[in-house]
């Protein structure tokens, strides 16, 4: 049985043990975050949890490293803009 998680409304298939980032790349998605100052695209860079480039919102929590979070069925993954908490700005 194949599993999927939701990425901005699209069902992304993954295999057991695969990270969110790996599944996104396998689905042809290479960028899922924009930088805070210049809005430039970012996705997997180091792939091992060090560089914090691949940040993504998972189940409502921003700044998760897509390369480290294991994909799970019914997970809701969202693109992240900037710090990912823009709605809190005052």
């Amino acid at each position, binding site marked *: 049985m194949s599993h999927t998680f939701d990425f901005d409304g699209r069902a992304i298939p993954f295999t057991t043990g695969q990270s969110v980032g790996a599944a996104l790349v396998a689905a042809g998605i290479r960028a899922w975050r924009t930088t805070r100052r210049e809005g430039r695209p970012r996705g997997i860079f180091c792939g091992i949890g060090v560089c914090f480039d691949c940040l993504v919102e998972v189940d409502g929590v921003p700044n998760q490293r897509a390369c480290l979070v294991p994909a799970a069925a019914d997970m809701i993954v969202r693109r992240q803009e900037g710090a990912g908490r*823009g709605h809190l700005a*005052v």
Partner: protein
Amino acid sequence: MPADVVVIGAGVVGAATAWYATRAGLSVTVVDRGPVAGGTTGAGEGNILVSDKPPGAELDLAMLSSRLWRELGTEVGGFEYDAKGGLVVASAADGVAALSGLAAEQAKAGVDTVVVPAGDLAEHEPHLNPELAGGVLYPQDAQVQPMLAAARLLRSARRSGATVHTGVEVTGFLRSGGQVTGVRTSTGDLPAGAVVNAAGTWGGEIASLAGVEVPVLPRRGFILVTEPLPRLIRHKVYAAEYVSDVASDDAALQTSPVVEGTRAGTVLIGASRERVGYDRTLSVRVLRALAAQAVELFPVLAGVQVIRAYRGFRPYCPDHLPVIGPDPRAPGLFHACGHEGAGIGLAAATGLLIAELIDGQQPSLDVAPFRPERFR
């Protein structure tokens, strides 16, 4: 040729001293055993506060320094000078009354104060805990990035002819009779007309090399740093207890919430104070207390990640005043240290006063309350 001034310490106080002395036309050499801002300065938050000082000599110094930092922000710049203002809050009515009383006294001394009733707090800080009882706003409170401030002031001084030696340790003093005529260092002697002890927490050790006692001791403080965030917090916000913690003579751990955003997006969370000597051990207990208090003030922070913590030593004297001025016990030696947790804020005025004193001018402020020989 001897320099007019040798400054020991490339932190923000040494940098400000070098800057003002250079501007006065003096030749200046700065030495530090570490890098720029590698000691006391680099462990600070960068506060320039008038809000936490009752009327008196230290408030006068802070008022002068606040004005000077604003000028330096334009004249030198590049160090994230932010006139964000401070908001001091209390959780109960008696705390608000005490705050308002202090504010009234400070206002007589020229501090701008705005008493904020509970219902108006959200207008100033939308994420503040709605259960707080009220506070006082201090528009003159500001912040700088302390390491950048030291570095920019030194760079500016160097462009005007000052010399900076990092990685050079002062090992003793040159004397001629009773007069201090320079310093001995790990790379050779540096003769000078005047020597300034701007060694921060280690100011007492430098003083003892000159054979005089200046009782500067370390008080450890931790600061938490959050992940980068959009602007959640507009002012430096802290609880009324911070003022009494600073003035306390208790050696045990004290924590009171001090929370502020920075230009870089991170939120800084302090402040702890404890007297444990130069022990740098990370204390999870302290970090936990700081985090819990910050969340109490700003519930929104409960869902935010802390990415690191840093700590350092605030140089305190028994009477909680800095040591600023010439040392009559060692003519030629000037002290500019012992500012406790207010060193970044008080650096500009300290630098100006020391430069004026060395240059033989009338100082902009009476330094008698800060005289080094006042301890006994």
